């Protein structure tokens, strides 16, 4: 059984990273050229890591499934990026940012990792500014910030509602610079289908060239996964349709432990499902809840037009249940409250699966112009998608799968349990506990990539300088490639009658119903059964037109769905063993009399890290106890 060593350095919280970094081993510049690193994924984490490693002089190979690294889904983040600059003089500090993240994560993250993420946040903002990222500014010419998601300071840097795009294009520019210099070689349109492990160390990957179908071998001294989250497991989510779990999952199958897979953030304000062919839920920024009021009718199944429902017949349920925070409760709380109303039959729209987000009062009070200045682009986006003008009638919103706090288990070096395999950004589990606070994902991804990984990876590589470049004709590559080809042939051979998307959609529904916003033991066990049944049907009925040696989107989708079955099962297992409610993980059996989450610190203050045991075999649970030396564990109350 593997023993988990988080490698958290001793010493005072604020000194840990500084002292640790000073002790890390380095690689001589002349030797760096001899070392090769693979980075998979080109979002904020992957692109920043690849460019920083290229700047140091390593030989870097970068992979993405899109035609260009600029299309990674980090591009869609709207709200902003946090940093502890304290530009507003409002009492912010690295410690406060750290404390907000630990509390927001419901005390299920590591103190040392979170503190470090907060610590490097200021460097991230400075680097973005220096790279020409046009963050919003004040009239005096300094950077502006705004408030975000329930914290009491204004620390969120932003570029209108397109902060993710601007930050990603910043990292893309630094990546492009290294590509031009030749330190980084870019491999677009590749799906990573397997990790190659040689003598216990990660030494390469197997990819499929998406245009030609060619199965390729790539070797390196170390592999970095920056492959994002797996929220698309729900089929309907706020993620890009190409986002998937396969790279991380296949690394897991090769021995990397997978941590907290059931911690998935459900974002409360997304545009609801409008038609049966919908495959994507578009997010409406959290910032809308600053001025919008959330309500449903007091009458069940009320089909009246929202503007015809008089004031006294409206139930402003967030304001009713959480008078102190009202419409600004954190994401997990707001999502569950919406579900509770809809499940009881008070939801609006034809499906009854949505609630109103109403700007009537804000427009009356502040004027239409003020609202337009703040949210104009979001209102426009809403109207484009729904055909409804939110200035005249309330928006309809519903929660949607959004962000995975869980992911590959990593130690303080961001290294997984496979030596030489690192995981950064959303693909690891480390910084957000059981619930992520708004605007902290962009911060973590870029912090990992520019300012943490280059140090810890260099330390790993420092004893690799005598290891010659790897050849791809080793038996381990041979074996891996063979397995990948078998996987492809197997799925192509079924020749049934149903599409990959139809299976994905059904899997998503099972997980949404049984392992979504609210879980219970009975439902989770049922969910596991249903997934098995669906998977069985998949292997009889999947239909993929075309072959393996051409551009074939259906094949790509089917391969992802194969891994999603496994991911879904592990989510259910994880949710089942965690007999408490914390953050986004809400077990109906463990709630207070008022229906709030009931955490159990005595028994569950640990990271659940799962070890793969083979197909159909029950995974083994490893527990990494979480020690809290610098914060006091408290109940999160928003009443």
């Amino acid at each position, binding site marked *: 059984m593997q023993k988990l060593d988080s490698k958290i350095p001793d010493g005072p919280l604020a000194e840990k990273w500084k002292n640790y970094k000073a002790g890390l081993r380095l690689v001589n510049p002349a030797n760096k050229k001899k070392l090769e690193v693979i980075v998979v994924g080109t979002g904020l984490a992957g692109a920043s890591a690849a460019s920083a490693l290229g700047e140091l002089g390593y030989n870097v190979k970068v992979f993405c499934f899109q035609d260009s690294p600029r299309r990674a889904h980090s591009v869609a983040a709207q709200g902003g990026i946090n940093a502890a600059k304290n530009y507003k003089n409002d009492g912010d500090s690295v410690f406060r940012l750290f404390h907000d993240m630990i509390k927001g994560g419901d005390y299920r993250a590591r103190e040392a990792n979170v503190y470090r993420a907060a610590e490097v946040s200021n460097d991230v903002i400075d680097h973005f500014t220096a790279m020409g990222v046009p963050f919003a500014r004040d009239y005096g010419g*300094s950077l502006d910030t705004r408030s975000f998601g329930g914290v009491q300071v204004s620390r969120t840097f932003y570029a209108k509602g397109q902060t993710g795009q601007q930050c990603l294009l910043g990292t893309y520019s630094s990546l492009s610079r290294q590509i031009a210099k030749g330190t980084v070689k870019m491999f677009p349109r590749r799906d990573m289908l397997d990790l190659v492990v040689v003598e216990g160390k990660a030494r390469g990957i197997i990819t499929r060239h998406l245009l030609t179908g060619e199965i390729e071998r790539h070797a390196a001294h170390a592999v970095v996964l920056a492959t994002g989250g797996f929220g698309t497991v729900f089929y309907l989510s706020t993620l890009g349709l190409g986002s998937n779990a396969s790279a991380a999952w296949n690394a897991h199958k090769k021995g990397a432990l997978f941590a907290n897979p059931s911690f998935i953030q459900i974002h409360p304000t997304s545009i609801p499902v409008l038609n049966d062919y919908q495959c994507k839920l578009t997010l409406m920024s959290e910032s809308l809840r600053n001025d919008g009021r959330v309500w449903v009718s007091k009458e069940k199944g009320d089909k009246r037009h929202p503007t015809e429902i008089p004031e006294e017949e409206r139930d402003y349920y967030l304001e009713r249940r959480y008078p102190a925070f009202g419409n600004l409760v954190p994401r997990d709380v707001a999502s569950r409250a919406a579900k509770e109303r809809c499940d009881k039959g008070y939801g609006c729209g034809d499906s009854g699966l949505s609630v109103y987000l109403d700007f009537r009062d804000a427009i009356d009070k502040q004027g239409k112009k003020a609202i337009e200045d703040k949210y104009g682009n979001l209102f426009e986006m809403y109207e484009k998608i729904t055909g409804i003008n939110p200035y005249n009638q309330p928006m309809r919103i519903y929660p949607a799968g959004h962000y995975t706090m869980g992911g590959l288990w990593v130690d303080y070096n961001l290294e997984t349990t496979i030596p030489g395999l690192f995981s950064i950004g959303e693909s690891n589990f480390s910084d957000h506990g059981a619930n992520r606070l708004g605007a902290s994902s962009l911060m973590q991804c870029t912090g990992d990539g520019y300012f943490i990984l280059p140090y810890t990876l260099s330390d790993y590589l420092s004893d690799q300088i005598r290891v010659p470049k790897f050849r791809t004709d080793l038996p381990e590559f041979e074996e891996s490639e063979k397995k990948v080809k078998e996987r492809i042939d197997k799925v192509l051979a079924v020749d049934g009658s149903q599409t990959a998307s139809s299976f994905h959609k059904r899997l998503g529904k099972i997980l949404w119903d049984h392992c979504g916003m609210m879980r219970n033991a009975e439902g989770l066990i049922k969910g596991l059964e249903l997934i098995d049944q669906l998977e069985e049907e998949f292997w009889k009925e999947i239909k993929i037109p075309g072959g393996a040696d051409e551009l074939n989107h259906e094949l790509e989708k089917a391969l992802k769905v194969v891994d999603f079955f496994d991911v879904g099962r592990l989510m259910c297992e994880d949710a089942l063993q965690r007999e408490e409610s914390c953050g986004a993980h809400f077990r109906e059996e463990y709630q207070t009399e008022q229906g709030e989450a009931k955490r159990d610190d005595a028994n569950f203050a640990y990271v659940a890290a799962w070890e793969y045991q083979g197909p159909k075999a029950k995974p083994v649970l490893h527990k990494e106890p979480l020690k809290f030396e610098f914060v006091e564990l408290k109940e999160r109350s928003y009443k």
Partner: protein
Amino acid sequence: MEIRLKIWRQKNAHTKGKFETHHLKEVSPEMSFLEMLDYLNTQLIEQGKEPVTFEHDCREGICGSCGLYINGRPHGPMQHTTTCELHMREFKDGDTIVVEPWRASAFPIIKDLVVDRSSFERIIHAGGFVNINAGCAPESNSTPVNKIISDRAFDAAVCIGCGACVAACKNSSAMLFAAAKVSQYALLPQGKVEAAERVQKMVKKMDEEGFGFCSNTYGCEFDCPKGISVDFIAQMNREFFSAKVCKPKAE
């Protein structure tokens, strides 16, 4: 609603393409344009035929993957709207809709509606960045930037790299794409240092890649889903000529 689709099919870059006609019944006006194509593809697969290949990812108008030439316009009839944001309610029952890929020699067709836009990558590689390593940035507020200038740089920086400007242009010019990047950096003090070299390198690369020249028809601005202004082309021209006249030459 019922629609008739005339859609471009092409096996690969080496074969000749042709239009194929499909009748689609029970199309919901609530569907996005790409969901309508998903619907078509589901039917094709169930009938044992090959689905239509098209690129897409975020489906919320920001990644720039999707780009279809719909009824003679990049991204279809709605202004400031990407293909994935376009909804079927903008069409009428019984409409015939013609769907083609981007047409430009610098964007060769890969399959059906998918084109190769790597020429855009190479324009960026030529100079679409600021030369700074991680770790040597000064404190952000040590260089104040006028808000109007900064907002203008943002307006240029919103480009999603979809290629609609090229598809809209009768010369297949990439001027708007290159100008947006050149201007973003030329406007900001952080990018100004290398502005002269950058514009020369990027324009040179643009020409090498086979994009045409600008003849000021403003089609690019009209069809840009992000509404990027042709004023930036004027800015790039100014940067280019002043670089030629008074700044050191790029190697």
